[in-house]
């Protein structure tokens, strides 16, 4: 059976060592670079004309822009628009990286928790910095809900703190787990097709897992988009907490 984990292996393309640290340019780096270059290239080319009546490509970038803008504005209001570049970058990067991963043979950057944890970490620390910078110590009101009787307040505050600390974990694990699980499932069903084909008379059954793999591919494309959407939506919600704590 073909190894379903093999696709996630990282190997160095250009080995680089900096003071004993391994900073090699790997296949993961390569696909990150491809995602960034594709995105930047697409937006530069599509916005070239800047016409009032958009061309087809321009419409796509406008739709992407409006999609993220509406999401951000709905959850944070006008005050959150300052963080649009961050939110938009996150959405597009995750979306493109997920979609690149759907190409057979390609590497899925977001299927490694290091990557998603780094992305979630950026959001987490942005929220902390913005929260304290904008509200000072009033940001801590996030952990002290109003209208709670004083004798359970310490307990509730503890629970709120744990719930706050759990954010970067659920934020990163969800994206990583979905991409990992989806790709493994696809590979396993793909492997079934190959194994059945090599199993003499059972080869007649081979189309069944193949059909399943086709259906799963469609589902995975949906998941690739949904996970980018969920990640961005949560980023907006967390930013909202930083901007308006105590709501």
């Amino acid at each position: 059976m073909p190894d379903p984990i093999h696709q996630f292996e990282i190997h160095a393309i250009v080995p680089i060592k900096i003071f004993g640290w391994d900073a090699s340019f790997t296949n993961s780096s390569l696909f990150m670079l491809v995602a960034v270059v594709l995105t930047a290239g697409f937006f530069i080319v599509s916005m070239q004309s800047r016409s009032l009546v958009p061309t087809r490509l321009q419409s796509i970038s406008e739709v992407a822009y409006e999609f993220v803008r509406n999401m951000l504005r709905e959850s944070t209001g006008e005050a959150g628009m300052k963080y649009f570049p961050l939110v938009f970058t996150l959405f597009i990067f995750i979306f493109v990286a997920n979609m690149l991963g759907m190409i057979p043979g390609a590497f899925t950057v977001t299927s490694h928790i290091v990557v998603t944890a780094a992305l979630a970490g950026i959001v987490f620390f942005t929220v902390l910095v913005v929260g304290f910078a904008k509200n000072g110590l009033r940001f801590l009101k996030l952990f002290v809900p109003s209208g709670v009787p004083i004798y359970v307040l310490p307990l509730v505050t503890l629970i709120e703190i744990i719930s706050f600390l759990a954010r970067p974990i659920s934020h990163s694990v969800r994206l990583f787990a979905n991409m990992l699980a989806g790709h493994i499932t696809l590979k396993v069903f793909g492997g079934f097709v190959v194994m059945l084909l090599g199993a003499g008379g059972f080869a007649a059954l081979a189309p069944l897992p193949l059909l399943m793999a086709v259906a799963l591919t469609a589902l995975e494309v949906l998941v690739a988009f949904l996970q980018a959407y969920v990640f961005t939506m949560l980023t907006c919600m967390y930013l909202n907490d930083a901007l308006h704590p105590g709501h």
Partner: protein
Amino acid sequence: MPEPADNRGPGQRQMSPEEKAAFEGRISDLGQLLDKVKAERKADADADLDAEMRGRGMAYGMRMAAELVAAVIVGGAIGYGLDRWLGTTPWLFLLFFVLGFAAGVLNVVRAYEKMQKEFTARAGGRVGHRVPDDD
């Protein structure tokens, strides 16, 4: 004033009964066609909204499980760390594990409340298939 030569100005002269019947027939045909087109449009819009809401529902659904598990893990990790530090194994771990579970449930309830609000605002609470309710 001379009468119009064609019969396209029905308000300007008396119509014969047959003409009137034919005219009313045309109106009701047109009305039916219009109703049909409108119903089709509405069904299309409904289906679009339905698909959109289902997508969002799926997005929310995927959140819930991770939300719960992450809080339990964080709670457990904090408790374990404090135990190692203070040498109180296993009491703080047990306490924080339970607190983590509470935090997880809190997160799920919050996410659900937000989802409820959003869906009520968007689709009047309709999500996916409408199932008749017996209460």
